[in-house]
């Protein structure tokens, strides 16, 4: 984490860029060391990112997703205006920013659920501009929604099976011939149960998804997205409404996905989670990207602090007390008692 010595924000990229730069402290290096990535690929991803200068729009050594000049206006209001962003392959990138910053809008644009006024973006070298949501998902970029979309009157297992790719039985002319798709269905069921078990939903498999709690639906949606074998998964606030103990294990899962080679881009308000697992953090405010960099340093960036808390504030957003194992242990104990 040598690039942490100084933190940069590109000039002219957003509100608060006229404010002074807060120099990053040496503490950052220690904080980063406390959360060393757990596998070789992860170390590699972090290692590569660590050498990059943390300025807005910086190019990454192995970018899987590249977006240019993506602009979305609602009436007179510009909800999203991203000049240039690259997302590193095989890394966990967090997209943070205050409410209404345009994170979800940006997600919608990238994944084909909304159309920008202008802009180009490509995934694995192929342009995704103008592609429908389904085509984007088929290309391997699968998203979840901030407002959870559980398919209520399907069972949890059916929700999962629906996500299995290339099921021959989903073609109309084969659908009435069960022998053409039964084998695929069996394999998919096995895989679904494995993923459900990972998300502690296995015993809910026969229940209607509509009977799940809000947090369980978040988990189901993430599990369902994984069922599609994505190359890159885009999670819109995956931890919102999930209990702290499960958040811990979710974070573990996300890291495990990255270690298996998946690229993760996630929106999250929980700074502790962001700090804990992300390899790179991109900060949005008022539709623009105002900063990007490694998690430890970017949260001290004055532009970022300003974006969240307004100017004249010197709080560190990535407050380490949230990482305190004692606090977590207490939460865990409380959860057990319930």
């Amino acid at each position: 984490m040598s690039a942490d010595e100084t933190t940069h924000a590109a000039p002219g990229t957003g509100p608060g860029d006229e404010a002074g730069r807060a120099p990053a402290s040496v503490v950052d290096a220690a904080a980063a060391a406390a959360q060393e990535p757990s596998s070789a690929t992860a170390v590699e991803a972090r290692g590569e990112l660590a050498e990059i200068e943390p300025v807005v729009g910086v190019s990454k050594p192995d970018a899987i997703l590249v977006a240019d000049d993506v602009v979305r206006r609602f009436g007179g209001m510009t909800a999203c205006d991203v000049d240039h962003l690259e997302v590193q392959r095989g890394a966990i990138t967090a997209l943070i920013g205050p409410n209404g910053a345009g994170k979800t809008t940006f997600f919608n644009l990238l994944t084909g659920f909304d159309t920008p006024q202008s802009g180009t973006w490509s995934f694995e070298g192929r342009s995704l501009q103008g592609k429908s949501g389904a085509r984007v998902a088929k290309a391997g970029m699968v998203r979840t929604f901030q407002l959870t979309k559980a398919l209520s009157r399907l069972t949890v297992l059916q929700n999962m099976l629906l996500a299995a790719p290339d099921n021959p039985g989903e073609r109309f002319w084969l659908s009435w011939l069960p022998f053409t798709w039964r084998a695929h269905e069996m394999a998919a069921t096995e895989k679904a149960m494995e993923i459900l078990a990972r998300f502690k939903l296995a015993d809910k498999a026969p229940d209607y998804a509509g009977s799940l709690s809000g947090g369980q639906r978040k988990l189901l949606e993430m599990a369902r997205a994984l069922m599609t074998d994505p190359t890159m998964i885009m999670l819109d606030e995956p931890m919102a409404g999930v209990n702290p103990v499960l958040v811990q294990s979710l974070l573990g899962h996300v890291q495990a996905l990255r270690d298996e080679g998946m690229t993760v881009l996630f929106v999250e308000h929980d700074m502790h989670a962001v700090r804990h697992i992300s390899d790179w953090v991109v900060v949005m405010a008022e539709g623009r990207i105002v900063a990007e960099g490694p998690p430890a340093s970017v949260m001290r960036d004055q532009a970022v602090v300003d974006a969240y808390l307004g100017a004249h504030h010197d709080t560190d957003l990535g407050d380490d007390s949230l990482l305190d194992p004692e606090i977590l242990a207490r939460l865990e104990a409380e959860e057990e008692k319930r």
Partner: protein
Amino acid sequence: MDELIRILTQSLAEAIAPTTAAFAIAAIGLNLHFGYTGLLNMGQAGFMLLGAYGFGISTIAGAPFFLALLIALGAGLIFAVVLGIPTLQLRGDYLAIVTISAAEIIRWIGRSTWLQEWTGGASGLQGRNYKGTFQDLSPLPDGRTTIGPLEYINTGSDSWWTRLFAWGVVAVVLLFVWLITRSPWGRVLKGIREDEDAVRALGKNVYSYKLQSLVLGGMLGSLGGVLYVLPLTIAPDAMGRTMTFFAWTVLLLGGAATVFGPVLGSMIFFGAYMLMRTGMRALSENTGVGNIISTTNVEQIGGMLVGATLMLLVIFRPQGILGNKKELAFNVR
């Protein structure tokens, strides 16, 4: 007592009438649309009328029975594609508006003098002009047959052959729909019914599935239309909004998103509707009820009661007779 038996026999006859089978098939189509995919088709009568015209006109032009049947199905297919391509991209309500107007357009074109040469205008096509090919197919011997209280000629307009054929088609369609709705294909439709964006996010071409559902259900509507006119005539005004409204009542009574719902719904609905009308007529003719309900009002009161039944049904038992109560709990999201 004799009167009572007569009334009951009449409703039993209505419950297994070929027109009841025709409504069952139209409602199965509607079930694919609404029950499984969540599409609001408010113009099923348009598909039925188009099927009837397709069958009748091509038969009169000299087509053999199965070719005429294919033409009827083709008419439903084209109609569904034409309606679906522009509207299925839009929100669900638009399809409802477009289908109801399109069905009316079909009816108005049918009854206009413009195409009178083929459609017969407002008076429609006489049954004897297009029933020949169908009746020639009958394997039954000449004569009449009595089964229990029911007696019909073997082959003819209102015959055992028409009943046999119509319910045979219902059985085949039921089997087919049962197979496709329990498949992964059917699961995608149900997913779309629940939340189409979620399904889209999983890489499924939602638009294509919705179109497939609209086409298939519409073709079943057309098939129902053919069955409906086999014992009757093709009269555009008999196949208007009321018909769509009856098809919806049948579906909701039996239970949307169930396989047997539309069939059970159709039999119960038409049986009960007949019972109600003949019962009321008998009461008003023979008892003091006649002072309140005159026989001339029976039809109107019958129609009114159907409307009231549909309303009560959606309020108190929206899952219908066969529907799953558990599923219902999540209707409100």
